[in-house]
């Protein structure tokens, strides 16, 4: 078991290097440079000044040399400094030690994704199970339609509709941001309430689109398990249906979902980019969006690397979870 884990972790290293090399090259292949924002169409910019700037950012060297320099720093866990004119270390931008934990960008994104994940599971598993047990019933059809509507609807569009309805028309929920202007003056309970009310819409949007996938998986996996002989045996023993489904069938039916959770991490991180930009949430996704717009290479690379690590870790955890949950797989290793 330990040997297997070690092997898996070691395997992650070349994969990670591959991911970063490809990302690095693609980013640099895209037209435009970080210096454009200062230099493009600025009549006060001479060609010499432009060269000076490019040299200052180290952009005069070939891409592969720049990648080598980047990699050399990364092994020392130094992600470099942002190219935006504040020149702050990129790590400080996503994990600012001066801020309370709850306001650090990486944490904000992580928190929203974890909450959404929990919400997705809490809703999609019961939907999946009941759809399977009530297969082809009216309930099944309504649920199927609902989750697919959520799946098909562009999330930013739905977000705007909900913001208008709950934020302006009803005035129940804040429209954007993570906390109110008067946050500091609120009591502790008030602060908690303030934060929660800011998270309702973003979490709803992040979850709604993913319900379809997970509940459908759950449904089909459940259907498959129900057809198996041991379920028939359980029923034949005279066990109540509730116990048959929730004790005997559910355990096996949950297995494929573990993999699914591991695989959904990149999707959630990608979704954060759109979500955080619309809702004005100061997280990692919003930072990625702004960095791409200004071609802030070190910042983009840092976020992509963190995303890659999270994805690889997610896969690893899914495999471990699978092993823990299923003795058959454990035996194979």
């Amino acid at each position, binding site marked *: 078991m330990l040997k297997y884990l070690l092997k898996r972790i070691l395997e992650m290293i070349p994969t990670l290097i591959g991911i970063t090399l490809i990302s690095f090259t693609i980013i640099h292949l895209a037209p435009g440079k970080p210096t454009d924002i200062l230099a493009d169409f600025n009549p006060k910019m001479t060609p010499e000044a432009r060269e000076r700037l490019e040299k200052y950012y180290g952009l005069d060297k070939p891409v592969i040399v720049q990648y080598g320099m980047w990699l050399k720093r990364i092994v020392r866990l130094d992600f470099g400094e942002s190219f935006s004119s504040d020149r702050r270390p990129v790590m400080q931008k996503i994990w600012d030690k001066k801020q309370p934990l709850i306001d650090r960008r990486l944490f904000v994104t992580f928190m929203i994704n974890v909450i959404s994940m929990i919400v997705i599971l809490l809703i999609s598993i019961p939907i999946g199970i009941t759809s399977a047990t009530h297969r082809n019933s009216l309930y099944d059809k309504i649920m199927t339609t609902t989750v697919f509507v959520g799946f098909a609807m562009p999330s930013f569009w739905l977000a705007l509709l909900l913001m208008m309805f709950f934020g302006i028309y009803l005035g129940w929920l804040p429209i954007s*941001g993570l906390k109110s202007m008067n946050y500091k003056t609120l009591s502790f309970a008030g602060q908690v309430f303030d934060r929660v009310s800011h998270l309702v819409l973003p979490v709803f949007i992040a979850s709604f689109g993913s319900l379809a996938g997970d509940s459908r998986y759950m449904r089909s996996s459940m259907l498959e398990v129900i057809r198996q002989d041991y379920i028939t045996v359980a029923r034949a023993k005279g066990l109540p249906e509730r116990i048959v489904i929730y004790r005997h069938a559910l355990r096996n039916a949950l297995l494929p979902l573990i993999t699914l959770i591991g695989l959904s991490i990149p999707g959630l991180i990608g979704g954060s980019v759109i979500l955080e930009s619309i809702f004005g949430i100061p997280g990692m996704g919003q930072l990625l969006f702004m960095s791409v717009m200004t071609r802030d290479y070190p910042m983009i690379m840092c976020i992509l690397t963190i995303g890659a690590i999270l994805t690889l870790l997610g896969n690893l955890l899914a495999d471990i979870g699978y092993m823990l949950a299923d003795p058959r797989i454990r035996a194979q290793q």
Partner: protein
Amino acid sequence: MKKILFFVFLICFFSAACKGKPPAGPILSNDGADGPVYGDTLIEGTIGEPSTLIPMLAGDSASHSVAGMIFNGLVKYHTDLSVIGDLAESWDISRDGLVISFHLRKGVKWADGVEFTADDVMFGFNTIRDEKTPTAYKEDFLQVKKAETPDKYTFRVIYEKPFAPALTSWTNLVVLPKHLLGGKDITKNDFARNPVGLGPYKLDKWTAGQDLVLASNRDYFEGRPYIDRYVYRIIPDAATTFMELQAGGIDMMGLTPIQYTKQTETDFFKKNFQKFRYPVFSYTHMAFNLKHPLFKDKKVRQAIAYALDKSEIVDVVLFGLGSPATGPYVPNTWPYNPDVKKYEFNPAKAKELLREAGWAARDGDGILEKDGRPFSFTILTNMGNSLRKNTATIIQWRLAKIGISVEIKALEWSTFVNEFIDKRRFEAVLLGWSIGLDPDQYDIWHSSKTKSKEFNFISYNNPEVDALLEQGRRTFDIGERKKAYFRIQEILAEEVPYIFLYVPDATPIVHARFKGIKPSPIGISYNQPKWYVPESMRRHHIDQ
């Protein structure tokens, strides 16, 4: 762009149901009767987050607008566009125009209490000229031969040649506190995020990705601003910003033409907000590649100018929020020449000119030909700017009517600039220039500025214009300069290297409780420290 379109659709979709319940806000009565008082907070929505608050390092407009509240320059523009003193009380220019001596205000203090002196200007000047400072604004200061500080309150610069834009280049770019930054690398310093300035506001708190809170500077040399706090809320999405405005989350933003003319024409907005409108210092134009065989002939360019109806473009694209342009200056400013050739919409005249130039429709497809080559070209513009895209579409339609076939291609900005503009691979482009308040446009029109990455990318070459540009930047006499720039506009109007299309209007909206806003040709924010909220309408209370 897509997002904005969706939003437009959404508004129409919802407007029946969504009458916009007024947020708990002030009841507007007692209109400013109680005179200026201190207090309240102004919240402005900003799409981008500032990256640095050191003006000379900043490239983005968000950084400049916040830094502009914290740092002042030596001189500034008066509402009539004349130059007046800011940190400099007065200045003398030597007869030959080579020496400018600024006499600084006495007793101005940095926010930490240290007095502002000529050494600080000297320090800023040396920093911006430093090889190692990554700034886009060096060039004006490299023209200086020598700078000196004869005493604490005098800063003197000596130029190689007289340089008219010189005076107005002494803005907040070069005002930095020497006692805090002397001997330090400004690019690797906390100062960019915790600046100490001397302007009307000082930075109180900057929460990355969320907001910047500025507090009023009680010792501001022009008097303490009435509004106690100025908050910039960072909301990257324009649709969200507009909803925040309705919900009371922000007090001030710039409106799009459709928001100005349609979406804010409701009772709710009329009661709770005040809208403003004034020309922006910029113009949108269609530029021809003068090296391209199609556009070498002046008559062809003039014909295209006659074929377009500028006021139609303003009405359709900008919903009337702008004015037709006749040259590279904003109407009603001193360098603007109102009496140039106007090219009133006249398709018949356009056809006639094209015929004179040898273009005629021969093979019956309705498209003009000359030497077997059909008259068709592509207009390039940048992606994501719906105003330009729409303008191009109208031009396409108008030119089709006189037998010219036009294609439109919108490209991502960097690709557009690097692959097409810089390599001169274009026939015509639709672009805009932001213009400074100084009329010097040497870099855009002078024939020496045609290399790659330079700004005369259309390869315009006219010795008379070259001489006039030179003349205009070498004298400080407004009368002389005016003569030069008037003549340049006449030549440009005759030769049509660009078709000057329109000057758009800025359309900010501000909550109605703010009083004392006086619109002027340079906008509304110039007197922001004098805005105030009558006590009865105050919305935000601050624990002092």
